[in-house]
């Protein structure tokens, strides 16, 4: 290739910028510069997005966010800085209007996470509905609520509606995994965190005491099942 790279060789290249005449070469050169600038700018933005908060992001964080969100959002803190060291599970109990005799009763705690875990055991390709749906929903719920359990803005309220619909899909109706046998009128969620015990070779003493947090009772409205109803 070097033989005809400088244009003074006997053979002219048939491709690339050197194969073009002046006006076309200008276009190609401008495009080359634009591509280089755009690629560098994009990489700089992605870098600032994944980097820890720093001098630049403190001053220009909004510009970075505008560039990145929503399509280039990414999070590669995979099991970092520390891996999750507790098993988080979600239980629900419901106030149900019985289908058979119209009586009203409150169910015991139903472990929704246990359903997921049962499905994942021995599964070479767990579905996102088993591995991610509830796990990420409760995680998001936690992030979208403050310490006192109040929703933070619209996303907080969306996460509540999402949780209600996930729960209903799993406990109400004939197709549900744990059918409560009636119309669910109210539900209460409980999030339980059970720390993983320290390794047996470690001298560290870690409490493996579970801690639970109950959420308030939520009324179930038609909005929580409107569309699921029609699809059944």
């Amino acid at each position, binding site marked *: 290739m070097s033989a005809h790279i*400088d244009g003074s060789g006997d053979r002219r290249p048939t491709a690339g910028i050197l194969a073009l005449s002046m006006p076309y070469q200008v276009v190609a050169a401008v495009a080359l510069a634009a591509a280089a600038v755009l*690629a560098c700018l994009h990489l700089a933005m992605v870098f600032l997005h*994944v980097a820890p908060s720093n001098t630049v992001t403190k001053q220009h964080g909004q510009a970075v966010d505008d560039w990145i969100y929503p399509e280039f959002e990414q999070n590669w803190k995979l099991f*970092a800085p520390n891996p999750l060291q507790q098993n988080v599970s979600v239980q629900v109990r419901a106030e149900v209007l019985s289908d058979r005799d119209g009586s009203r009763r409150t169910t015991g705690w139903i472990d929704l996470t246990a359903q997921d875990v049962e499905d994942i055991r021995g599964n070479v390709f767990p579905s996102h509905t088993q591995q991610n749906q509830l796990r990420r929903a409760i995680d998001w719920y936690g992030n979208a609520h403050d310490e006192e359990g109040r929703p933070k803005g619209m996303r907080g309220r969306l996460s509540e509606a*999402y949780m209600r619909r996930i729960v209903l899909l799993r406990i109400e109706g004939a197709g549900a995994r744990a059918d409560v046998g009636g119309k669910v009128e109210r539900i209460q969620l409980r999030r339980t965190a059970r720390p993983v015990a320290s390794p047996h070779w470690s001298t560290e003493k870690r409490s493996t005491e579970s801690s639970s947090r109950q959420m308030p009772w939520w009324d179930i409205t038609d909005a929580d099942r409107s569309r699921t109803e029609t699809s059944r």
Partner: protein
Amino acid sequence: MTAPSPAPVAAPARVPFDRKLARAAQTVTSRALGPYQTAIVRIGFSLTWLFFLVREFPHRHEMYGPDGPWSFDLARRLIADNRAFTVLMWSDGRLWFEVVYGLAVAAAVLLLLGWHTRAVSVVFMVGALSLQNRSVFLGDGGDNVVHLVSIYLTLIRCGQVWSLDARRAARRAARGEEGARKVELTGPALWVVLGGFLVAATWFSPVTGEWWIYVLLWVLWLGQGLWWLVEQYAPGEPRVLLDVLANLAHNAALTVLMAEVCLIYATAGWYKIQGSRWQDGTALFYPLHLDYFTPWPALSELLASSGIMVMLLSYGTVIVQVAFPFTLFKRKVKNVLLVAMMLEHAGIALLLGLPAFSMAMIAADAVFLPTVFLVWLGARAARGRDLLLRREPAAAGLPPQRPAREAGGEPGGEADGEAAPRTLVG
């Protein structure tokens, strides 16, 4: 062609640096680099996404359907806020949902085969973005990589080898002049259909998607049309210019893709260094005891029971992830780490029950595989296919698949590094 070519862009090539610059400019404008690497990335990601879509087929309504837990209405409220792009916001009809899911599957198959790669890669991106953005709270790292790479792939000429496009180009070249003159109708037909979709997309742009997505789609679509026109009516310099522009987009996007993979590992590694569990060498123990990531509890327990093993793997992971970007300058070390990372991901697929994530990461890693290995792999695959189909080796009939540009008879367009493949394939 017009007047004789002037001296290289920058200056007369007397100073070595200028010469280098000119040579670099010629390289990035004359060739779409890494034909085998980009092809394997295309194949890897389309296969990953295809596996995923087929596996989730029974769950598709619950995941992305209008009636799922993340209902159309909830998604609409979130997307009004974050402006993510998803054609599933066009309608809450179930039929439309099935069509989109079906198109996403079809695009994955066609991208795998390399059929009208550029157009299909755009459909692939639209499919992936549409499903993932419809239910953002369902994804994990694997979806995230597919999301990013599907965008970059639209700018990458990823069908130069191992594709139906490459086969078509080779056949046309074999037929010579008369073959090149033959007008094909599939491309223009596809273009018209996609144009209809594009108009619809633009109509719905107030509902979903940021402005740049539409600019990208329009530029790609108009570019394809222009390409066809130029090919028919102005095969001289305008055609060379278009090729230059396509090569530039390819090389820039490929650079971004490679840097993106480095950023993934750098982020994963450098943040781990700061964690106490990665420092005391017990980190791996904990995921092996998380209910959501232990499909085979006995196996996880077996691995986690050895303190030495857990520490070696924990330290090894951090070292490899942090070191990888720096080893790119040293070929041999890079290849060793690449193998280590791919093996680790294969292990993760089984042990943590994350096959889709692992496949996506392996496909991303593959962009760094050496050409010699990929060519060898391609030859083995071709031989296997021939044996399987009980037919004569391809070499007898058609020329082996090579970059389309080369098949087109470009003289001296190949670098030394790619001289070796010819003997291996041929």
